[in-house]
C-alpha cells in the first residue's frame, strides 16, 4: 500500500480505519448503540413509574384509615386514640406561602426579564444573566440559613410591627409577631422563584421576532408600548409557563421554608402566624414518624399529594412551553 495516503487524525482517518477494519462492530455497532440508548431512556421512565407505584403502595395504610378525609382533617395527632392524621394545615401553608412567593416574585421577575431582553445595553445582558443564575445556584439550605439569621430578625424587628400597625385591619397581619412565619417563608420563596421565572420568560421574550418590535416602533410606539404590545402579547404563553414553573418550584421547596416558617401545625388566616407546608412537614416529621407505620404511611401519602400537585403543575408548564417554542424547535 502506498504510504502517500496518510490522513490527519480525525473523523476521516477514523472512517478509513473503520471501513478497512470491517468486523462485527461494523455490522452490529449501530443497532447495538441505538438499542442501548433507547433502553437506558426507557429504563429512566420505567424507574419513575415503579417508584411512583411504590410510593402509592406504601401510603395505602393511611389511605384506608382516613380516606379522602385525610386532606380535610385539620389535626395531626399521634397521641389520639386512634391516631388522627389530617393534612389541611399543611395544604393551607403550601397554598399561602406559594401565593405570597408568586405574588411578590412575578412582578420582579418580569421586570428583570424585560430589562434583560429589551432595555439593557447588549454588553450588560450576559453579566446580568449570570448574576440571576447565581441566585439559582445557591442551595436552598443556604437560603434557609440566611433566612433564619438575616431575614427573620429583620422581619421581626423592622417590617412586621409596621405591617401589623398599618394593615392589621385587613385581618391578614394580626397576632403575635414571630419573624419566622408564613410571610417570611413566602418572601424567601419569592426570591427563589425569581431565577426560574425571569430566565424562562426572558427566553420567551428573546424568541419574539424582531419584526414585531419594528412594526410597533414604526407606528410611533414608545419602548414600553412596543414591549407591551409587540413583545409581551406575543410571548404571553411562554411567560405564563414560566410563572407556572416558578409555582412548581415554590410548592416543592423544602429547606428554606422549613427553616423560616416557624413550624406550627395550627390553621390561621394571619400571614404573621407560624405555619407548615407539605414539604416542611415531611422534613420535620419524617424521623419522628419512623417508629409508627401508620404515621409514616400518612407522611408518604402527603408526599404522594405533593408529587401529584407538582406533576400536574409541571405538565401544564411543559405543554405550554412546547406550544410556544415548537415553531422554533422544528429542525431538519
Amino acid at each position, binding site marked *: 500500500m502506498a504510504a502517500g495516503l496518510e490522513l490527519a487524525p480525525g*473523523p476521516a482517518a*477514523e472512517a478509513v480505519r*473503520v471501513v478497512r477494519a470491517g468486523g462485527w462492530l461494523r455490522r452490529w455497532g*449501530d443497532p447495538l448503540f*441505538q438499542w*442501548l*440508548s*433507547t433502553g*437506558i*431512556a426507557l429504563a*429512566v*421512565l420505567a424507574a419513575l413509574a415503579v*417508584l411512583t407505584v*411504590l*410510593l402509592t*403502595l*406504601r401510603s395505602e395504610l393511611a389511605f384506608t384509615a382516613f380516606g379522602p378525609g385525610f386532606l380535610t382533617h385539620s389535626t395531626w395527632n399521634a397521641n389520639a386514640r386512634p391516631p388522627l392524621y389530617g393534612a389541611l394545615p399543611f395544604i393551607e401553608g403550601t397554598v399561602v406561602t406559594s401565593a405570597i412567593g408568586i405574588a411578590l416574585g412575578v*412582578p*420582579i421577575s418580569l*421586570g428583570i426579564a424585560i*430589562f434583560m431582553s429589551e*432595555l439593557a445595553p447588549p454588553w450588560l445582558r450576559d453579566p*446580568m444573566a449570570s*448574576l*440571576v443564575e*447565581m*441566585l439559582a*445556584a*445557591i*442551595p436552598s*439550605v*443556604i*437560603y*434557609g*440559613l*440566611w433566612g*433564619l*439569621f*438575616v431575614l427573620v430578625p429583620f422581619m421581626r424587628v423592622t417590617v412586621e410591627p409596621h405591617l401589623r400597625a398599618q394593615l392589621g385591619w385587613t385581618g391578614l397581619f394580626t397576632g403575635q409577631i414571630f419573624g419566622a412565619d408564613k410571610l417570611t417563608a413566602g418572601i424567601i420563596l419569592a*426570591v427563589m422563584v425569581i431565577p426560574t421565572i425571569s430566565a424562562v420568560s426572558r427566553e420567551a421574550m428573546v424568541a419574539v421576532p424582531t419584526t414585531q418590535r419594528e412594526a410597533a416602533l414604526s407606528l410611533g410606539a*414608545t419602548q*414600553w408600548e412596543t414591549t407591551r404590545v409587540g413583545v409581551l402579547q406575543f410571548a404571553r404563553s411562554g411567560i405564563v409557563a414560566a410563572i407556572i414553573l416558578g409555582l412548581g*418550584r415554590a410548592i*416543592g*421547596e*423544602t*429547606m428554606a421554608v422549613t*427553616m423560616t416558617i416557624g413550624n406550627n401545625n395550627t390553621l390561621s388566616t394571619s400571614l404573621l402566624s407560624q405555619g407548615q407546608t407539605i*414539604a416542611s412537614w*415531611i422534613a420535620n416529621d*419524617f*424521623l419522628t414518624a419512623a417508629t409508627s407505620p401508620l404515621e409514616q404511611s400518612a407522611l*408518604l401519602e402527603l408526599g404522594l399529594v405533593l*408529587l401529584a400537585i*407538582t*406533576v400536574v403543575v409541571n405538565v401544564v*408548564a*411543559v405543554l405550554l412551553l412546547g406550544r410556544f417554542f415548537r415553531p422554533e424547535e422544528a*429542525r*431538519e
Partner: protein
Amino acid sequence: MRPTRRGRRRWANRVISALCILCVGLALIPLGSILFAAFSQGLPALNLSLLTTSGPPAVICPAGAVCSSGGINNAILGTVLLVGLAALVAFPVGVLTGVFLSEYGDNRLGRGVRFFVNVMSGVPSIVIGIVVFSLLVYLSEANVIESRYIFSAASGSLALGLIMVPVVARTTDEALRLVPTSTREAALALGLPRFRTILRVVLPAAGSGVLTGALLATARAAGETAPLLMTAFGNTFDFAGLNRPVAALPLVIYYYGISGIPRYESIAWGSALLLVLAMLAMSLAARYVLARTRARTSTR
C-alpha cells in the same frame, strides 16, 4: 391636547424603565446579602482544624478550658462521596438518555420521553427522598437488601443520582441538537457508522454543552439537603461503609443552623461559605468552558 398625551406616554415609558431597573436592584439585594452573610459569618469559622477534624464542637466552652472546636472533615468527604457515586451512575445514564432524545428521538417515543424527563426535573427533591426511602424499605422487607441500607451512603447517592439524571439528559439533548445536521452528514458520508458518528463527531462537538450540564447537575446535587434527611441521614463520625449513615455538608448546615447553639451555628456558616465557594467555582467553570468554546467557534 396632543403634546400632553405624548408627554404622558413618554413619562409612562420612563417610569416603566425605572421600575424594571428597580426590579433588578430588588433581586440583587438578597444575592448580595446572602454572599455578605456567608463571608462575614463564615470566614471567621473557617480554619484548618475545621477542615481536617470531624465531629461536633463542645456546646459551651468555659474561658481557659481546652475544648473541641468541632470539624466538618467527615461532612466534606461525605458530600464528595455521595455526589461522586451519584455522578458515576447518573452521567452515563443521563448522557445516553440525551443521546437517545437528540439522535433517535425524532418520533413519538422520543417526544414522550422528553416530556417525562422535563416533568421529572420539576419534581421536588424531597419527594425523590421519600420515594428512594420507600424503595429501600420495600427491598429490605422483601429481604433483597439489609435494612441497614435504608439510611446509608448508598441510598443517599441513589437519591442524588435520580436528581442528576434529568438535568444531565436535558442539557445533553439540548447541546447535541445544536450540532448542525451537516456535521452528521459529513461524518456519515465518509463512511462512519452512525454510532461512531455520534461518539466521535457529534458528542465531541457538543462537548462543552454536555460538560456544562454535568457541572450544573453536580452543583445542584452537592447542595441538596431535603432528600438526604431520609436517606444519607447524617453522621457525626467518619465514613464507615456504604451501608451506614454518612455525613454531608448540607445536613451539617441544616442541623447546626437550627440548633440554637452559637458554637454550632458558627460551623454551619463556615460550611455554608464552603458550599457557596464550591458552587461559584463550578458555575464559573461552566461559564469558562462555554465561553472558550464560543470564542473558538467564532474565530473559525
